């Protein structure tokens, strides 16, 4: 226990927390994206899926039991991820009080250089996303999870929501384009032999998550799903 606390005092320890919580988030967004694609099964299939998320494990566990377990894990992960992000950012920004007149980068990617701003964009998007599709803010005739499909259609019939959504998942794709490779490096699970593998996984994840998430608003907006 003492070792875990002293680990967190180091910059590497804070990064390890970011990597593990980031990994939890990564797992979640993959499942979330796959779940969202059920929209293409039509209203019944999608609403059934929304219902399933609430009853999975029942009667072994109380109704919504597993849903709440997952929600608490995710909330904890997000809080830890952001706390460590803010602490590290403050350390990083303090490390060069006087900058260069001219500095040029040799290989840094846009995704790597904008991790913090991308993270902030994702945070704002999560707040909007929960307020909008979970709590119904700005959705006419919002019927909670019983009408999940209809809520999605109502939301994305408005181009503003489509634009915000695609920007949000774009930021997520960028974040993970660097983040997925980075988390293996941070946890020491990278080496000369695995580097290409994790780089490839990160690139693929960023692109597929962006496309998979975007498919839903695009389908609604173009009338493919209605």
């Amino acid at each position, binding site marked *: 226990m003492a070792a875990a606390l002293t680990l967190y005092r180091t*910059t590497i320890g804070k990064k*390890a927390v970011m990597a593990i919580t980031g990994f939890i988030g990564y797992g979640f967004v993959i499942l979330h994206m796959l779940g969202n694609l059920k929209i293409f099964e039509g209203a019944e299939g999608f609403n059934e899926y929304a219902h399933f998320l609430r009853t999975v494990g029942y009667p072994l566990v109380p109704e919504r039991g597993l849903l709440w377990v997952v929600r608490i894990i995710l909330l904890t992960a997000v809080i830890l991820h952001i706390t460590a992000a803010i602490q590290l950012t403050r350390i990083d920004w303090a490390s060069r009080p006087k900058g260069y007149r001219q500095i040029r980068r*040799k290989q840094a990617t846009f995704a790597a250089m904008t991790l913090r701003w991308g993270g902030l964009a994702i945070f704002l998007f999560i707040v909007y996303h929960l307020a909008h599709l979970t709590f119904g803010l700005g959705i006419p005739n919002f019927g909670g999870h019983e009408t999940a499909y209809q809520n999605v259609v109502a939301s994305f019939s408005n181009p503003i929501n489509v634009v915000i959504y695609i920007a949000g998942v774009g930021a997520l794709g960028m974040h993970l384009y660097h983040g997925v490779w980075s988390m*293996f*490096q941070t946890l020491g699970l*990278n080496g000369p032999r695995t580097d290409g593998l994790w780089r490839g996984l990160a690139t693929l994840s960023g692109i597929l998550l962006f496309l998979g998430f975007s498919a839903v608003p695009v389908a609604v907006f173009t009338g493919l799903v209605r």
Partner: protein
Amino acid sequence: MNLTLHVWRQKNPQSEGRFVTYQAKNIIPDMSFLEMLDVVNQELIMNGEEPIAFEHDCREGICGSCGMVINGYPHGGHRGTTACQLHMRHFKDGDTITIEPWRARAFPVMKDLIVDRSAFDRIIQAGGFISANTGAAQDANTILVPKQNAEAAMDAAACIGCGACVAACPNASAMLFTAAKIAHLGLLPQGQPERYTRVVRMVEQMDKEGFGGCTNIGECAAACPKEIPLDVIARMNRDLLVAKLKGVN
């Protein structure tokens, strides 16, 4: 060839410092970057002015003292090249060159282009000793080192402590330097007894010196004149996590 230089001049650690423009005249393309500065300094001395202070010793890429940011690149940005190994033939007649010291809180500017890199020495000191028997050296063949490890340890040991990794890092992080030092001992049998205490102490000191954290951007390895690979950092992270799991404090 003739060049225009914008050089950072700063009297001492306390003073403000500013860029001053100089003309470098009659530079021969075969000169090294430091020889070009020598020519400029010679003229400054003749005119009774203070020469530009820069650090140098070996002038062959092995001592690590000649660090400076040249046109936005630590050591000038050529692969595997220190500033002293940089030839003037990479520049064109009439070019303008901006020359600045390393910028990091942990590397305060002493004078002009010279920074104090003692923070690196303190990181090394924090690593401590390796256990070795005194008396007659044992037969070299009794300690077996796998070829791959020997190579990787040698590659890591090539670090000359120049600080270009810190200078290039957007977070002014010293992870590549520290990780190189940890890897070169950690890969060898002689480094095993203190392997985990060493990583804990060195990382602790690295953080204490005020270097930034690592966001795995990779500019350090790209700037490193000894081409230390980024994977030494993954190795250091792994060693630190294992050390903490073992309860080393």
